[in-house]
């Protein structure tokens, strides 16, 4: 059985508070805007 620790926050809340989550997401959004401009 997969054993998980008892996190303080649910994983999705922990993810939203993780700066490393926002970096790729921001770059992806910027990439889509760039694509719209160059296409």
């Amino acid at each position, binding site marked *: 059985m997969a054993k*998980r*620790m008892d996190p303080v926050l649910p*994983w999705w809340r*922990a993810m939203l508070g993780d700066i490393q989550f926002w970096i*790729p997401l921001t770059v992806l959004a910027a*990439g889509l805007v760039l*694509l719209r*401009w*160059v296409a």
Partner: protein
Amino acid sequence: MTSPTPLAAARLRQLQAVGVLSGFAAGAWLGAAEAPTKVVTLGISPVAISFVMVFGVFLARWSLPALIRGTANVGVDVRRAPHLVVWALIAGCLWAVANTLTIFAIRDIGLSIAFPLWNTNSLLGIVWGAVLFNELRGAGRTRWLAVAGGATVMFGGALLLALASPSQAGAGNAFRGMAAAIGAGVLWGTMYIPYRKAYLTGMNPLSFVTFFTIGELGLMTVLAFAYLGGPEGAWQELARARGVLFWLLLGGFVWVVGDLFQQYAAKYIGIGRGIPLSNTNQLWGLLWGILVFGELAGGGSATYAQVVGGSLIMALGAGAIALATAPAAEHLRWQEAAQREAARYGVDPAYVGARLAGEDPDARRGRTIWDWIIVGAATAVFVVFATTARAPQLAMHHGWVAALALALLVLLGAGGAALWRTTRFG
């Protein structure tokens, strides 16, 4: 948080060696993926070519992991670290946007200028690896110089090779083309954040690519519909190209083998070292072009000098990185980064530690009926497209095809055996 226990020196050496070998095997297979696409003659939209290749990638990314390890293990990984599914989807979307940007970059400024610009992704990978995941921390100045210097030297070699590569000059807005190429580099470089995040937390590379490919194919389908005139326009474009669809699917399949090796390289030597090593794909792509398709035939001595010089420089940079493997002090910093991830997301630290050491304590051996159905369905799709494929109307040197294919198989055998012996594909 307790301090992590250092990995035994012999085990660390094994993992680093298998990571370096995976990096080089990735370069060879990613470079070879260009070969099937070269038989596709002009007249087909690049977006349609990209879309079909991604479909081939999708088939391979579901069937190869099912064949190698069985999909039951994907479920185990998801239960351990469900947040990584989101990360893998984002990485797949980043890939799709970056790949589409390269199409417009080539249109506007030509491949020889665009390629080096988006190839900067490995330099960005080094920055993210060091800033976010403790890579190169505690590595000492010599290793720092070898990795950063090696990647910079490789960039110089790539520049020379790109200038020597036969390609049509772009015919569009130069500023827009450069923005697209640099943008693609930034997107690809940033895509390695989810890679490293997943592998520090213990996800198996075969599980990661399974979700990555859903994001990749999903967004690529949206983009293909947007640029080809909706589902109807896309269908017409694909119907027009049906004679070459098999070659594009094959390119996607070969690409996935390279990508899997790249994932293992990212896992065991980090993105700072793994990505530059797999960027040797440019060298292999050029080898296929020159030896098999005679692309430089009639080229001047200056072109050949650029190719030889660029290849040597690139090999030198890759060699420097390969020799600068992570010492125990640096690996300890990786373990600290992994512990941080475990604490943040509530993943069992014992699981994270074991996976980082290349062990797979809760792996399920064997395949289920679903695995065989997936493998059978993917194979059937390839067979159907193969029956409608047109033989390429292109002069090829078959002796070199055999020699390069043999080199690929040797690297596949050596890399696969090393991964199996050391990590059981963990």
